C-alpha cells in the first residue's frame, strides 16, 4: 500500500495529464456499447448509435438554437450570480452581524432545489427566458456566497491590520486584500456554481418546455426517439466536462500563487 512505506519520492498516484481522463471516457463508452448490446432493447441505444445521432442534433437548426439558448441563459445567470454573490459573501465573512443576518435564511433556502421553484416562478414570470435565468441565478448564488464567506472569514487578521496601518479604507481592504486572499476559495465556489448552473439549466428546461437542451431531451424521450435522448445526454455531459476543464484552466491561472489542492474537481462543495 502506498501509505505504508515511502520510497522517498513523495508523489502519490500517477497522472498522465489529459491522457488518463480521455482513456476513461473511452472506457466508459466501450462499457456502454457492450452493455447496450447485451441488453438489446430499443430503449437503450448503443454508444455508437448515440454518437451518430450527435451531429444530427448539433447541426440541425432547431437543435443548435436550443442549445445556444441554454448556454446563453446559463451564462447570464452565472454572471449575475457572481457579481452579486462574491461581494455579499465577502462582507458576510468579515462582518459578523451581516453573517448572522443572512445565514439562517440562506440555510433555509439551500435544500430547496431552485429548479423546483420553476412552477411557481413560471406562474409569475411566464415560461420564457426570465424564469429560467432567474432560477439559475438563484441556484448559483448559494455556493458562491458560502465559499466567499468561508474564504473571507479565513483571511488572516494580521493581513487586514497591515492594510489598515497603511491607511487603506474598509472598501480598499476588501478589494485589495480580502478578495485576492479569498480568491482560491471563491473560485472553488464558482466551480460548484458552474456545475449547479448546468444542472439547473437542464432541469428548468425539463420542467418548462419551451426551448433548451433539457427541452430537446425530454421531447425526444416522450416521442421515443431514444437515439436523440442519448445523443443529448452526451452533448450535455460533454458540455459539462468542457466547461469544467476550461474553468479549471482559468482558476489555475488566477491563483497560481496559492497551493491548491489536488486537481480533482469538487462538485457542490
Amino acid at each position, binding site marked *: *500500500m*502506498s*501509505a*505504508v512505506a515511502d520510497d522517498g519520492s513523495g508523489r*502519490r*498516484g*500517477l*497522472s498522465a495529464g489529459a491522457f*488518463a*481522463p480521455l*482513456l*476513461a*471516457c473511452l*472506457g*466508459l463508452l466501450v462499457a456502454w456499447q457492450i452493455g447496450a448490446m447485451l441488453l438489446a432493447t430499443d*430503449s*437503450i441505444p448503443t454508444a455508437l448509435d448515440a454518437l451518430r445521432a450527435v451531429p444530427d442534433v448539433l447541426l440541425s437548426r432547431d437543435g443548435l438554437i436550443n442549445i445556444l439558448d441554454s448556454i446563453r441563459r446559463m451564462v447570464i445567470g452565472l454572471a449575475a450570480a457572481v457579481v452579486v454573490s462574491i461581494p455579499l459573501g465577502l462582507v458576510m465573512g468579515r462582518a*459578523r*452581524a451581516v453573517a*448572522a*443576518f443572512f*445565514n*439562517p*435564511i440562506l*440555510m*433555509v*433556502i*439551500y*435544500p*430547496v*432545489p431552485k*429548479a*423546483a*421553484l420553476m*412552477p*411557481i416562478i*413560471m*406562474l*409569475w414570470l411566464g415560461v420564457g427566458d426570465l424564469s429560467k435565468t432567474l432560477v439559475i441565478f438563484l441556484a448559483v448564488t448559494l455556493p458562491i456566497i458560502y465559499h466567499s464567506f468561508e474564504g473571507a472569514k479565513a483571511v488572516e487578521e494580521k493581513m487586514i491590520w497591515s492594510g489598515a496601518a497603511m491607511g487603506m479604507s474598509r472598501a480598499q481592504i476588501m478589494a485589495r486584500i480580502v478578495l485576492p486572499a479569498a480568491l482560491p476559495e471563491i473560485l472553488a465556489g464558482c466551480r460548484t456554481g*458552474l*456545475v449547479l448552473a*448546468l444542472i439547473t439549466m*437542464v*432541469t428548468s428546461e425539463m*420542467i418548462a418546455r419551451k426551448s433548451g437542451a433539457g427541452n430537446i*431531451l*425530454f421531447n425526444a424521450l416522450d416521442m421515443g426517439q*431514444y437515439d436523440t*435522448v442519448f445523443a*443529448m*445526454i452526451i452533448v*450535455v*455531459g460533454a458540455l*459539462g*466536462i468542457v466547461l*469544467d476543464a476550461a474553468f479549471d484552466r482559468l482558476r489555475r491561472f488566477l491563483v497560481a500563487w496559492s497551493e491548491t489542492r489536488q486537481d*480533482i474537481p*469538487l*462538485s457542490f*462543495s
Partner: protein
Amino acid sequence: MRATLSRDIALGIVPIILIGALWQAIVVFGYAPPSLLPPPGAVFTRLAQQLVGIDFLSQAGATLLRLFVGFAIAVVLGIGIGLMAAVHRGVDAVVRPLVRVLAPVPKVALYPALLLLLGFDHASKIALVAADALFPILLSTYYGATTIEQKLVWSALAAGTLPHQVLYKVVLPAALPSILTGCRIGLVISCIVVFLAEMISSTDGLGYLLVRAARSFQTVDMFVPLISISLLGLALNGVLYCARKVLLRGFPEV
C-alpha cells in the same frame, strides 16, 4: 460570548420575519392576486393540515425512502472507493480519471437513461440520488485520507498495526472530519435531487405533489412540498450536525 450568540440569533430571525411581513403585505395590499401568491397564513395552515394527513405523509415517506437509500449507497461507495483510492496506487490510477470525467457531468442529464433502464418507480430515483451524492463524498474522503499526517500511520505501524489494518484503524478515523463534511454536502444534494427527480417523472413523492398542484393551479398546495423539503433538509442537517459533534469530539475545531 452569550450576548453575541443571542444577538446573532436575533439578527438571523430578522430577515425571515421581514420576508414574512413583506409576503403578507404584498397579498394584503393586492399587489399580487391570491391565485398567484397566497398569503403566508393560508400556506402554513395548509402545511399544518397536510402534515397530519395520511396521504401527504405517505408521499413524504416515499421521498424519504428514496433519499435515505440513495444517500446510504452514496456513503458506502463514496467512503469505500475514496479510501481505497487514497491508499492504493492501482485503484487511484483507475478512479481518478473516471471521477475527473464523471464529476462535472450533470447526472440529472442521465436521468432519462436511468428511467429507461430502471423504470419509473423507486429504483431510478434512488440511482440518481446515489449518483449525485456519490462524488462529493468520494472526493472529501479521498482528500481527507490523502492529507492525514504521515506520522500517524508510522506511529500506528511501529505500535504493531498490520499494514492491512492501517486503512480502517488509522486512515478512516483520521479522515473522518473531511468525510463528514462530504456527507453533509451529499445529504443536501440528495434532498435536491430526489425532489427534482420526482418532479420530472414520478407518481408519488413530494416533487410529484408540487407538479400535481401546479397542473391544477392550486398555488397553496405548491408551496407545501417546497417548504417541506426545506424543513426536511434542515432537520437532516441538524441530525448530521449532532452526529458530527459526537464522532469528532476529539478533533480540534477547524
